[in-house]
């Protein structure tokens, strides 16, 4: 695993981020139009983290993404069709209509572990995967994400401590997006940087610009390499901003407009596209085509998902237990 990318890699990042944004926009629009079922989450602003971290993993590595990590599911190979179908409660969804929105989007054939609402229960689960790799001496790494709010939970700390004492191949990306639902950082914690929680457990920590996909990619790739070498876990705090409400029903009136404006200047998707255009890696025309492709891909997925059948109620009782 190298920590820099060739130009194909850089273009890939642009593609996955644009695809993520396109799907995210579509979800928001559909739910606002009343075409959704239940609620949905937007990860707008989190694309660089979700895509950059996901792209830094090798094919056999395992990831447990969270509710802002649409881009990570995509980059790890979960199709927009299955994600959309899930959100619409369809049989073709990842959970066959059982779990809601992004919850439960797990698929072991893609090395993705699905999450539960209870935050941050994925953390020790991802760590357990890392411990399994270590036990079997497989050169694999497990990575998971968590929010600023979740970094206050006991489980965040128990997991980091256990990861450190087991020296497990585990990477934790903290998405510090300034809010936990309506609660700003200063009402949640008395520290400025969440990264100060890493040395509490003997874990290596680093802050990155969460709106710079290359910065995220490089930091995560380095942490993954470190873990794969057997040098133990890392924590990466990616600073960003949640650009929409907590979930679709939330207008987020409690967020000061200036804060959003400030972060809007550094939209991670356009920032990276502009950087590639500036360095000549991407022409305006190619960029236009890329956007068009993403748009068409998501439109097709929506059409598929909306037409897909709902689950047969007769299936309701199957699969509670593995047999």
């Amino acid at each position, binding site marked *: 695993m190298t920590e820099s990318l060739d130009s194909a890699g850089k273009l890939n990042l642009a593609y996955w981020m644009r695809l993520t944004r396109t799907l995210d926009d579509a979800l928001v629009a559909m739910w606002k139009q009343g075409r959704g079922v239940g609620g949905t989450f937007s990860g707008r602003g989190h694309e660089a983290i979700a895509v950059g971290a996901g792209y830094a993993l090798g094919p056999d590595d395992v990831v447990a993404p969270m509710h802002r990590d649409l881009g990570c599911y995509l980059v790890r190979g979960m199709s927009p069709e299955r994600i959309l179908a899930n959100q619409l*409660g369809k049989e073709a969804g990842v959970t066959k*209509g059982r*779990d809601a929105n992004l919850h439960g989007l797990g698929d072991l054939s893609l090395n993705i572990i699905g999450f539960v609402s209870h935050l941050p229960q994925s953390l020790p689960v991802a760590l357990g995967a890392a411990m399994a790799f270590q036990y079997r001496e497989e050169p694999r790494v497990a990575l998971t994400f968590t929010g600023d709010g979740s970094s206050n*939970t006991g489980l965040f700390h128990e997991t980091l401590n256990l990861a450190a004492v087991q020296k497990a191949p585990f990477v934790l990306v903290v998405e510090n997006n300034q809010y*936990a639902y309506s609660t700003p950082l200063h009402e949640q914690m008395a520290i400025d940087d969440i990264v100060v929680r890493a040395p509490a457990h003997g874990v290596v920590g680093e802050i990155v610009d969460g709106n710079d996909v290359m910065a995220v990619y490089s930091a995560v790739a380095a942490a993954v390499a470190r873990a794969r070498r057997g040098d133990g876990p890392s924590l990466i705090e990616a600073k960003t901003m949640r650009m929409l409400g907590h979930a679709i029903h939330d207008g987020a009136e409690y967020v000061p407009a200036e804060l959003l404006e400030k972060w809007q200047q550094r939209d991670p998707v356009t920032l990276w596209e502009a950087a590639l255009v500036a360095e000549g890696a991407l022409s305006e025309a190619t960029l236009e085509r890329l956007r068009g492709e993403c748009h068409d891909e998501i439109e097709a997925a929506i059409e598929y998902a909306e037409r897909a059948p709902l689950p047969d109620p007769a299936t309701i009782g199957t699969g509670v237990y593995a047999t």
Partner: protein
Amino acid sequence: MTEIRHLTYLDAIAEALSVEMERDPNVVVLGTDVGGSFGGAFKVTKRVATQFGPRRVRNMPMTELAFIGAASGMALMGMRPVVEVQFADFISTGFDSIVQFAATTHYRWGAAVPWVIRAPSDGGIRSGPFHSQNPEAWFVHTPGLKVVAPATPADAKGMLLASIRDDNPVIYFEAKPLYRSLKGPVPDGSEAIPIGVARIAQEGDDVTIVTYGSTVHDSVQAAAELAGDGVTVEVIDLRSLKPMDTDAILESVAKTGRALVVHAANRMAGVGAEIAAFIAEEAFGHLDAPVRRLGGMDIPIPFSPPLEDTYRVSAYDIVRTVREMVAW
């Protein structure tokens, strides 16, 4: 003199908080996102957040175990914290402190722990397995707790007042599907409705339905339908699950000879099992048919409409079951 107005179930809860916080400065509200201009995921605490500000309506970090534990400490010092867990489902995150510390302290060393946890429970709104749970059975099984589950706006208000004034840890399950859909008369003033006393939601002679929470309304609806068959159903709204008004249950079953227990939670080892076992033992001589139970299936609560609708107990299920019972 109390004036009767019509309030939603949600506004009745909000009013109880307001009334009691005005009466007693020891009452504070704790929870994630309960305060500020936001006032809670369901806006139940918005009224008191505006009225009393951040000193008394306090946003907590998303650490249920710590803030429920802190509520026990405040309660030991004579305060009366009212904790909101954002969804009843998240009560499992604070479980250890509830069942081990709060529930046992008075028995062990005689100190009262007067807090209330408000737990927005129940489903039917496409929220999936982690925002639709009815976990009351865990707590009814735990000695030292009280558990209530009002079904009407008047009870929501009166029982929240009683819960806050109670000297013990009380888990107050509010049925979130009723928040805005149910309106009813709510007395003005500050009168509490005692914990441990059931309400006859509907009188009848042929079959007793024992229920609580949202399924009270399904049961009353079923009773109306069954009246068309000439079957009169007595619906007992327990309101309080621990302690439980077993006298009210026995009295009704002695009259009807038939009992159906209904709740939204999954049936397997649910609170309905306790109620049914109790009736089967204590009213054996009165029973003309087996005690039946209706509840959710023994599966996580699915999200997709056709699945969630199949999962949930409906008025139709109740009607069908009562018909079977009278035909027995």
